[in-house]
């Protein structure tokens, strides 16, 4: 039997309660007082996030199974060549690192010894023009914390935004609310790379019109702000357009990491943990104070 007259509070009253509760939640969440509630809500959704990747994994497995012998041999050969090449590079790198440490001890400054890395897989992508956030399959159970840097083999991808027990959300460097402190390799110029809301572009909004920057310049992390370790590639400058009548030039750069194609990401632990913890609260706006510093240099 169906009810003709609903029992309990009326629909209007229920709507009012729902809207008030939602507004209260939004206000609380905006102030960041509910990380536990969010983690508790995300945890039961983990099977869903896993399930959505099953077909993709199956296609990948099938692809592997059916890829021909010659293709595999070719792949193998290429990887061997690449490994020899990288090993040689690493030899010189190790020597350089030793030299760098020795020189820095001479100068009495600290040197960050390498980073520990963890491989995580992409679970979901939340791409809107106003937020570039991806979900990965490792969470606080694996020791992941907020504001850890995330990379792929080509460069910086972003940083950890929120952590749940089995998953974590990573904000990409192209998110309009994200900024990375960077340095031009060619001349050491410091600036900030801000996301543009497009997956293939970051902006350098705080460079004056006469700044010494050219298309093709490599931008690496400067290590300022304390979130990203220094020296990792971020982007290469694409266009430089001086704007007459405005204080800053219009400079765009193309991220080097394959932001929209990588399925495997690397999460880095800085050996110097206290530094990450100090930067934890400031992320992702940690980079903002760097802007005046770049002006002060000139």
């Amino acid at each position, binding site marked *: 039997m169906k009810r003709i007259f609903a029992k309990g509070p009326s629909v209007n009253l229920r709507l009012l309660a*729902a809207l008030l509760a939602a507004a209260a939640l939004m206000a609380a969440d905006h102030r960041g007082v509910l990380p536990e509630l969010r983690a508790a809500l995300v945890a039961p959704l983990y099977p869903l996030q896993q399930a*959505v990747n099953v077909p993709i994994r199956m296609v990948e497995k099938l692809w592997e199974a059916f890829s021909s012998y010659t293709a595999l041999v070719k792949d193998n050969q290429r990887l061997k060549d690449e490994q020899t090449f990288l090993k040689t590079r690493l030899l010189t790198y190790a020597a350089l690192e030793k030299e760098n440490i020795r020189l820095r001890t001479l100068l009495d400054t600290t040197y960050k010894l390498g980073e520990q890395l963890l491989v995580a897989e992409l679970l979901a992508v939340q791409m809107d023009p106003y937020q570039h956030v991806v979900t990965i399959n490792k969470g606080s159970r694996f020791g992941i914390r907020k504001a850890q840097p995330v990379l792929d083999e080509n460069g910086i991808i972003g940083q950890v935004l929120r952590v749940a027990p089995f998953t974590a959300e990573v904000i990409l460097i192209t998110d309009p609310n994200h900024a990375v402190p960077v340095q031009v390799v060619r001349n050491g110029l410091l600036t900030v790379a801000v996301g543009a809301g497009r997956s293939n572009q970051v902006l350098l909004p705080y460079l004056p019109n006469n700044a010494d920057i050219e298309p093709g310049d490599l931008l690496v992390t400067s290590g300022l702000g304390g979130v990203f370790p220094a020296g990792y590639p971020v982007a290469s400058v694409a266009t430089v357009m001086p704007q007459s009548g405005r204080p800053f030039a219009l400079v765009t750069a193309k991220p080097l990491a394959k932001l929209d194609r990588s399925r495997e990401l690397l999460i880095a632990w800085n050996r110097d943990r206290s530094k990450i913890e100090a930067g934890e609260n400031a992320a992702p706006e940690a980079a903002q104070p760097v802007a005046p510093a770049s002006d002060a240099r000139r």
Partner: protein
Amino acid sequence: MHAVRPHGRLFILLSFGAAMLLRILPLPAELAKHNPDWLLLVLIYWHLALPEAVGVGVAWCIGLLADALTGKMLGQQAFAYSLVAWLCLKLYQRLRLHPLTQQTLAVLGYLFLAHGIDFWILRVKGDGPFGWAYWLSVPLGALLWPLVYLSLRHVRRIFHVR
């Protein structure tokens, strides 16, 4: 009195689960931002089909889960979904009798309302920039309504969810 039998409730939950899967489908970035709001489509269907079982409270809970799932501010979609639920519950008797084309137009309005609330909240929060592409998921969702409606009705009749 039970409005919905236990296996019916399971079916409703499964339909929400499927909608969540579609919502977080790992599509290429260019497509992902136009992925329509599948959860709201399924919610609207249940509001029209079983208004005494799926009401404002269910919409609020589903909205909260959607917020957690898509990394939005908690309560953002709960707000929009409960408002749409209220409208659906006010109008379901009329909407049920409309032909599918007219229903689709109403659903377009609902999706637009939910997306507009989303837009408004993001603007208040200070997010941006928004181009016309931000709104593209609304007509796409409305175009998918006949598909959602017919397939859910078909399966509902097989399982006798009443």
